[in-house]
């Protein structure tokens, strides 16, 4: 006769959830992106890393760097995670992201950046303020320079406070190209920046916006007024737009 205690002990050995191997081993993909191919590394909770292939170099070197930096094994992914390919074509909500390795502040900065609409730009200082730390402008720049998931979190839409486009992970030319694909008139923005204009208001509504805000772009030339700062716009009787919140 079998010992019921020993039998019950053996029954305590529940098998591992089928997800354990997926939890431990990440998957890599090479997929088309807006400026050529991108490499992506995906864990069971979402996309962990994305890099333009032209910037990251050879696939093997990219993967070896990932293994070293993150200490995680990575194998070819069986399929692209839901939403990744449409997001790289500029459509949809985007795939789930796994940003668990980042600090809470970095995650907040990326969450704020992810809410900047297509075809619009915001200054670093705006991101800092929206993330709840208005003085942490440089820290925002650092977080975005290390964005593990560019394109999916559109750090190319964050520009310098003086209107200059600023730097980008894979170079300024990529930033210009990405913004132009989204319909941003980069030459026009640069002209405004050179003229010291940071905000644009309409004298019919009395509302002042960032130049790329969809409200600002509807203002006709006759009613358009540029301002170097929000203070100056307020002094002139304008209130900040509720959508772009300058």
């Amino acid at each position, binding site marked *: 006769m079998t010992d019921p205690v*020993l039998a019950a002990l053996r029954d*305590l050995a529940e098998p*591992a959830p089928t997800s*354990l*191997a997926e939890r*431990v081993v990440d998957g890599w993909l090479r997929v088309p992106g807006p400026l050529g191919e991108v490499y992506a590394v995906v864990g069971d909770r979402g996309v962990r890393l994305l890099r333009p292939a032209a910037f990251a170099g050879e696939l093997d070197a990219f993967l070896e760097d990932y293994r070293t930096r993150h*200490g995680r*094994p990575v194998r070819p992914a069986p399929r692209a995670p839901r939403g990744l390919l449409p997001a790289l074509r500029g459509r949809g909500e985007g795939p789930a992201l796994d940003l668990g390795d980042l600090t809470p502040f970095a995650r907040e900065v990326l969450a704020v950046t992810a809410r900047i609409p297509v075809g619009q730009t915001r200054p670093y200082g705006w991101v800092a303020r929206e993330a709840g730390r208005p003085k942490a402008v440089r820290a925002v720049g650092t977080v975005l320079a290390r964005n593990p998931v560019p394109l999916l979190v559109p750090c190319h839409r964050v520009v310098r406070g003086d209107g200059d486009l600023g730097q980008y992970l894979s170079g300024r030319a990529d930033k210009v190209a990405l913004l132009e694909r989204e319909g941003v008139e980069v030459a026009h923005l640069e002209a405004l920046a050179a003229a010291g204009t940071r905000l644009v208001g309409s004298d019919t509504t009395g509302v002042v916006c960032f130049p790329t805000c969809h409200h600002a772009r509807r203002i006709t030339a006759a009613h358009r007024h540029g301002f170097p700062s929000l203070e100056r716009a307020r002094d002139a009787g304008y209130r900040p737009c509720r959508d772009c919140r300058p």
Partner: protein
Amino acid sequence: MADDEQLRAALVEDLDAGFEAVVRTHGDVVHAVARRTAERAADAEDLAAEAFLRAYRALRGYDHDRIARLDLRPWLLTILLNTARNDRRDAARRPRTDGAADPPDRASPAPGPAERAETTDLGDRLAALLATLPVAQRTAVVLRHVVDLPVAEVAAVLACSEGTARSHAARGLAALRTRLTSTEDTS
């Protein structure tokens, strides 16, 4: 399912592909021991995953000879138990701030070990009583009787002689039988 010799060859051939095979082969036993080591069921998979990642990081620093000599299962279980011990020490040093301090295992407040020991299901009572054993006895019982390891491997994981491993397992099992009877008497 691959045996350890095939797994070691696979690790030498391609560390990441080989490691995935290691997780698929030894995942059940590592998870089962994690389940009896972690306080909450929800932590068992985290603990097992963390132990496997530590094992992977160690393997990246091993040369082929060292991998070829590895006894994978006891090596993985040793890493698991060290990981669990470090986690407990860290948890004692700094209280959790992620809101997971209370067991959200079930919707109702989780019963304590004593209450769980009074439930009628033998498995539930044993699981609760296991948690009350001294660590060496509990580990020996889990390795020997829950996941059914040979005594030599239990000794390797506990870093003791086979005689000591056998004695830890026997004393733990005897204590479980005694406590089972005493909880029956009081109910």
